[in-house]
């Protein structure tokens, strides 16, 4: 490892090192590829490694720095790409036998943007098959495991992206989020996961799960990196993070979001909210219905996309994913429309809840990372189905399309990370990032999320 490179270094720190000449994009890429392969037997975070492509991109980046003409603040940053996103000439498997041999012919728009900014893409990461599940367990390439405890779920569906960042392989990974697939694995692995406003990052060239709920966004080691990555992936402009000039007004909706929690999660989240600013109770009367309505829309749209493959190659799906797609036929046209009506109500309610506050705050996931084989998880008031638990607090924000982020806010006694979810008004990712950065500073979160020995409390 180069002397100036420290484990889990952030993208911002890497770029500062490139600019000063203390670090080389080629050495950093080599080290990242080496580490990715070293942790692969333990984590199974990657499906495809792109050594040659990465080294070519790193050499080009190094030349630009030597000429003092980097492409911008993301030049030379190692990135891992969820294997749901097309890269020209590279297979896109979606972690499924159905697409095991599919080679993409074009780059997705998000890949095009990242390449234009000088990103060094290391490989394609593991996921819950076709992104249809929040555990990361069901993959035709084997389950991805949590770097904090390999006997536990990394969370999904962007399991490999979060695991790669949490293991310190790279500071940035790309994920997609239809019901929580960026924020859930970020929370369970102890890193930052940002779901931007619906439409902020192009989904062109990304295999859909549900067109009206899909979002693309970054999973990163730090909040600053999330801002840098979002700017590289979209038209977002990111001012450098800095201190806020007043206490934050934090909206807290106790209904739904604070139910069925693990006790340690509740404790960490309540402390995080108190640190962040002044809590104000808010209400969203239809919130209990939003997760159910979101799942009906998701089921219908996913079934429509998979209709032909299910008929022709049904046996190539993981049974758990196929079952969900088969069951989706239970949702009738009228149900879809009723759910879409409720969606309008929910958008209005979430917008109203944000009147007079800066952000909404709640646990990103009600429980810490469950064991790989768990079907139910223990919470304060009994036990609940693991899928319902993981999706409880994230899926309502896919329903409305508002931006949301999961930021590490502490750990359980056994060292499992807890994520605080913040939600802002549409297009106000800058507010989310500023609030998250404040929390990160107050909690003293290091840039070494996921590295053994870190305690973000």
């Amino acid at each position, binding site marked *: 490892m180069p002397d100036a490179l420290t484990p889990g270094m952030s993208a911002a720190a890497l770029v500062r090192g490139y600019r000063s000449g203390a670090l080389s994009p080629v050495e950093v890429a080599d080290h990242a590829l080496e580490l990715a392969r070293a942790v692969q037997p333990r984590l199974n975070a990657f499906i495809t490694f792109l050594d040659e492509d990465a080294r070519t991109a790193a050499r080009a980046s190094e030349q630009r720095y030597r000429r003092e003409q980097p492409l911008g603040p993301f030049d030379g940053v190692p990135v891992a790409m969820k294997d749901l996103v097309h890269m020209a000439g590279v297979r896109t498997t979606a972690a499924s036998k159905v697409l095991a041999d599919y080679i993409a012919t074009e780059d997705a728009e998000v890949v095009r943007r990242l390449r234009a900014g000088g990103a060094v893409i290391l490989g394609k990461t593991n996921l819950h098959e076709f992104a249809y599940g929040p555990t990361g367990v069901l993959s035709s390439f084997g389950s991805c495991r949590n770097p904090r405890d390999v006997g536990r779920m990394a969370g999904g569906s962007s399991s490999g992206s979060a695991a790669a960042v949490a293991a310190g392989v790279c500071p940035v990974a790309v994920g997609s989020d239809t019901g929580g697939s960026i924020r859930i694995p970020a929370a369970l692995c102890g890193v930052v996961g940002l779901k931007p*406003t*619906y*439409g*902020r990052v192009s989904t062109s060239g990304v295999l859909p799960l549900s067109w*009206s709920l899909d979002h693309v966004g970054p999973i990163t080691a730090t909040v600053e990196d999330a801002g840098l990555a979002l700017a590289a992936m979209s*038209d*977002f*402009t990111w*001012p450098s993070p800095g201190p806020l000039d007043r206490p934050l007004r934090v909206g807290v909706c106790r209904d739904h979001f604070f139910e069925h929690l693990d006790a340690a999660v509740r404790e960490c989240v309540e402390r995080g909210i108190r640190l962040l600013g002044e809590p104000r109770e808010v209400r969203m009367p*239809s919130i209990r*219905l939003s997760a*159910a*309505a979101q*799942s*009906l829309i998701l*089921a219908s749209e996913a079934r429509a996309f998979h209709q032909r493959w299910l008929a022709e190659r049904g046996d190539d799906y993981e049974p*758990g994913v196929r*079952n*969900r797609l*088969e*069951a*989706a036929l*239970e*949702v*009738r046209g009228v*149900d879809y*429309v*009723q*759910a*879409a*009506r*409720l*969606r*309008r*109500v929910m*958008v209005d309610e979430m917008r109203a809840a944000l009147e007079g506050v800066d952000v909404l705050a709640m646990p990103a996931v009600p429980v810490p990372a469950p064991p790989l084989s768990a079907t139910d998880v223990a919470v304060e008031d009994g036990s609940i*189905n693991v*899928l319902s638990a993981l999706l409880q607090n994230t899926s309502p924000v896919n329903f*409305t*399309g508002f931006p949301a982020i999961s930021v590490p806010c502490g750990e359980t006694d056994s060292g499992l990370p807890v994520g605080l979810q913040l939600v802002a008004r*549409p*297009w*106000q*990712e*800058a507010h989310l990032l500023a609030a998250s950065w404040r929390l990160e500073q107050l909690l003293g979160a290091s840039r070494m999320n996921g590295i053994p020995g870190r305690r973000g409390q």
Partner: protein
Amino acid sequence: MTESELKADLELRRRLILDAIERVWQVDLREIRPLLHLEEVLGRPDSARNA
């Protein structure tokens, strides 16, 4: 979960939504049109970016 368990779960969710829509309709007596395109209510980033 098995396919039959998943079907039962969807049926529960379906009923929950239908019942709620009926309640909202009766209490508020208002027209609620389906929201089929989020862009309709979120606007575009050009008009609100970093606001």
